[in-house]
């Protein structure tokens, strides 16, 4: 009996060890060490702001020290016609840019990684054989367990889109049974585009009921009926808050250092109230 009990205890102790495995993060066994030809190293590849998180890092770095003014100016689209080609900034936008740089560098304004973010994207949509643009306003929200997601706050339907009769049964299904698909990241909003294609509905991306206005329902009906298909994201603007300012970011894919996510406009919040 004593021997049996000892065996039992030893057996019990071994049970948790049965799940000890190598870490998943270890290099895969199928990683073949062959030199792939690599050689492109133009400066724009390092200089380009490829992701919004990269923009936030650079913004915060440029407001950390007193010499950040020039570095901040590099975050603007240098090809913007409103910024003088001769180096002299002369119009209202130029004045605003100067004021912005001065304010955020003096106050050492920091942009939070998980602060308020909104977006306005243009979707190329097909409807009965014709192509048009659907404008979608989005807001990034965070759940209680720290998950991020973009949700639709407003849509501007294409002008030519007619009213359609709602398929109530399908609408009910789309609104109540489909969970919000993961669409945390914003590069080209491909997950959103994919979701519209997969679900044929805006509903999984529009949890706020007050956002579902007449234009939203018009687009929703067209998607559900299959008459409208979302084909590509053709324009992409993101809005971030920085102190008393709202920054509009646009993506400039070009082969120069001043490229990627850059500031394309500024909005001074509470300008009159101050």
């Amino acid at each position, binding site marked *: 009996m004593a021997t*049996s*009990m000892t065996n*039992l*205890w030893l*057996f*019990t102790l071994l*049970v*948790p060890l049965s*799940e000890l*495995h190598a*870490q*998943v*993060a270890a*290099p*895969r066994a*199928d*990683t*073949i060490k*062959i030199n*792939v*030809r*690599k*050689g*492109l*190293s133009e400066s724009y*590849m390092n200089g380009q702001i*490829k*992701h*919004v*998180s*990269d923009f936030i890092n650079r913004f915060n770095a440029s407001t950390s020290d007193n010499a950040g003014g020039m570095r901040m100016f590099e975050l603007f689209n240098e090809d913007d016609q409103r910024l003088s080609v001769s180096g002299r900034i002369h119009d209202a936008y130029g004045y605003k840019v100067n004021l912005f740089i001065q304010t955020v560098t003096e106050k050492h304004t920091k942009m939070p*990684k998980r602060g308020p973010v909104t977006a306005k994207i243009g979707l*190329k949509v097909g409807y009965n054989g014709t192509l048009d643009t659907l404008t979608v306003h989005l807001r990034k929200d965070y*759940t209680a*367990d*720290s*998950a*991020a*997601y973009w949700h639709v706050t407003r849509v501007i339907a294409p002008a030519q889109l007619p009213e359609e009769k709602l398929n109530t049964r399908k609408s009910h299904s789309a609104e109540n049974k489909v*969970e*919000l*698909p*993961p*669409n*945390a*990241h914003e*590069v*080209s909003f*491909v*997950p959103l585009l*994919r979701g519209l294609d*997969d*679900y*044929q509905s805006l509903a999984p991306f529009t949890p706020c009921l007050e956002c579902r206005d007449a234009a939203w329902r018009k687009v929703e009906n067209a998607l559900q009926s299959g008459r409208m298909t979302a*084909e*590509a994201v053709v324009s992409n603007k993101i809005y971030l808050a920085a102190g008393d300012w709202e920054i509009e970011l646009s993506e400039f*894919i*070009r*082969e120069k250092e001043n490229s990627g996510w850059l500031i394309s406009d500024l909005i001074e919040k509470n300008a009159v109230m101050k």
Partner: protein
Amino acid sequence: MMKYIYIFLLLFSGIGRLHAQPEMDQKRLAEFQKLTQQRVNDLQLYISLIADKSLSIEQREQAVELAVSLFEKDYMVNGKRRTPYVQVSRRNGTISSVPVRIYFKNLMNVKFDKVEITYYDAAVVSEFEKGTDGNYHATATYYQQFKGMDKKGNLIYGSRDRKDIRVTAQSAAVYAQAGKEDLKIFFGDITVRDTVPIPGF
């Protein structure tokens, strides 16, 4: 009696391991950014092998399978089978989408005698962010230069593309059950943006 002792011990021996999945800390997520770079390197290697016409068809088909294995598995939505796809945006405004497997097969069958693919040194991986599915998501970006040549080595077609790959770090179920949270990297949809055609083509 012994039978009950066995059942008792088996039932309660694992209780100490039952707890909620922990959040991934920033240090661990940074490690997964590096792991993603390694996976992108693997993908770049497989793409080079797929396009290399000096290799046998079998070797290149094997490279297609290895490349596809880096991507998320097919999934079902609204009764339809879905697979990761590649969206190609050209400078002339055309945009097309094809499933990744078809994209790699097309690369295998390009009508050039010789193909040369060059990559930028390392992919830039965005910070991982938790999604509503509980997985972590990021984007890996890299540049690829493609040159298609004839038998004499004359350039017939060339372009430089920026590629954005959706990356999902999925919780590995076996580890999560054991209370040892860890993630596994999979690729999702790819966006290919034609940045510049090589001069003359």
